């Protein structure tokens, strides 16, 4: 379980997160949505331990995240950030292998090699494993990083969940790969020890795939729960300032704006 309790984070006089408390469960797809500036990326950085909030704490599997060493944290938790630029040319397989860095010293073990192979197959990038990362398109590069963060937590860990934190993973992807990626994350969640928290912009993708949606607005949580409780006309209007038209079928719903 991943829990944030009474998190407040401010820069200067502006509170980016204002007394936010939220829990995420393993085996469920937890998606965070909200308008620009709502505090989504800040929440992700607090949850991954990249920034320390002024008040409150993050609890990861029963431990305060501030008390876990960088290496220990890196063995159970991987984070996909936005806008990663590689400083020097590397082969795709070398980039994916970086995900295994927390697990070995010196040379990678056979287990690390297997994780990299399997992660590259899983995200369909095996065909360009030997290519220079710099020659790939934006979407292909994004998939390389999917494989990298997946390889980082490829094997179950004793006495701990595995935590996958995704900050806007769908940028650069076309519709087909957006759907493929969401299906793959759902497949990863078949592992009961896998805990996924992701930020997405597309409300319809969130409606289709999320088990639990958390809607942020102005640094506070406006609503959290199953989609029918969160994606209401009133909530969307408050958060985005636009009135949605919501269509519901038997098992699906979609929103559009006029």
């Amino acid at each position, binding site marked *: 379980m991943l829990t944030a309790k009474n998190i407040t984070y401010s820069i200067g006089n502006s509170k980016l997160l204002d007394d936010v408390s939220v829990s995420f469960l393993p085996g469920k797809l937890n998606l965070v949505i909200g308008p620009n500036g709502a505090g989504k990326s800040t929440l992700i950085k607090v949850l*991954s331990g*990249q920034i320390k909030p002024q008040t409150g704490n993050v609890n990861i599997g029963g431990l305060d995240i501030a008390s876990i*060493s*960088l*290496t*220990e*944290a*890196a*063995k159970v938790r*991987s*984070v996909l*950030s936005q806008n*990663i*630029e*590689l*400083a*020097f*040319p*590397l*082969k795709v397989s*070398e*980039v994916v292998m*970086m*995900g295994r*860095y*927390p697990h070995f*010293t010196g040379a990678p073990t056979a287990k690390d090699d297997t994780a990299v192979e399997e992660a590259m197959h899983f995200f369909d990038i095996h065909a360009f494993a*030997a*290519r*220079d990362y*710099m*020659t790939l398109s934006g979407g292909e590069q994004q998939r390389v990083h999917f494989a990298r963060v997946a390889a*980082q937590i490829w094997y179950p860990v004793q006495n701990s969940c595995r935590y996958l934190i995704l900050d806007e993973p769908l940028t650069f992807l076309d519709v087909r790969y957006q759907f493929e990626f969401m299906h793959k994350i759902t497949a990863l969640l078949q592992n009961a020890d896998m805990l996924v928290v992701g930020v997405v912009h597309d409300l319809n993708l969130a409606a289709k795939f999320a088990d639990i949606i958390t809607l942020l607005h102005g640094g506070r949580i406006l609503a959290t729960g199953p989609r029918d409780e969160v994606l209401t006309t009133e909530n969307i209007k408050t958060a985005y300032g636009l009135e949605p038209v919501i269509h519901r079928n038997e098992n699906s719903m979609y929103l559009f704006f006029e």
Partner: protein
Amino acid sequence: MPQQNNLYKVIFPALITLLVVALLLSIRYGAVSLSMDEVLSSIQKLFAPTDEKTLNERIFTEIRLPRALLCVLVGASLAVGGGLMQALFRNPIVEPGLVGTSSGAAFGATLYFVLGATLKFNAGQWTLPLAAGLGAVLSTSMVFLLSKSSSNGRSSIVALLLTGLGVNALFMSGVGFMSYIARDPQARSITFWSLGNLSGANWESVEIVGVATLVCIIAAMRYAKQLNALMLGEDEAQLLGVSVKRLKMVVLLINVIMIATATAFVGIIGFIGLIVPHIFRILCGSDNRKLIPASALLGAILLTLADLLARMLLSPAELPIGIVTSVVGVPVFIFLLRRKNYLF
């Protein structure tokens, strides 16, 4: 590319062979040529008393061998320093002297050349290396102190880079001023020193530079994997378990020790530190675990050959080695850049 994989396998044996060849050439040729027999007999008598040696055997033991070894050590230092700093700053155009090290050394050396006689500071053959070394420590400490942010006491990479540029400019203007007030022979000494000079090589300098170089390269190897992770950015490296703050401190320290020591003994030799890591990256990719040892070998080879040329081209006079490294290094570098798709 499978071609790159094959290259990985042959590159280390090839570099080691090349280094042996370069060493042999550099030891045999110069103002006096030594035959292979003389080289072999000199090696057998390496530790024999001086009066049992022929003149050529003494040239081998007292001049050629220490000079060739100093070339190897300095070349390795410069190339590894360049590779480390490029990796740390995530920037391809960084030179090992960037954090003020070589300009500070130049300033110290210049002070010695111009004021040495007046100041009565004299430590025999160690005076110049000491002056240059102290200058390097002074300028590098300035860069570290001035780049610390007043709010959190940490040096960001960009602050280090810019402060380094500023402090370099400051110390180089000091060098400029000292050259301006220097008399002709002093000014010539300054010019020669700032183009690199290995003619002072002896066994003491080999020992000191040798210890610094070996310790630093071995230490650097331990951080190669962390420097790889840094290619993704500071935040990403941190998420992969790397303490970036510690990495920065250690790598900068390694670089400063290595470059300050080498520069103190041989002056400023440009370009090796910039291009050698790139030559390896173009041929074999950027993995620092291979880049660091391969750069050490490649830097050693290039500097040894450059020194041979510097001694041979205008024999019996000697060209400053810095001129040779640039004249030979630049065309090779540009050729490789144009041949391969080296994408950034």
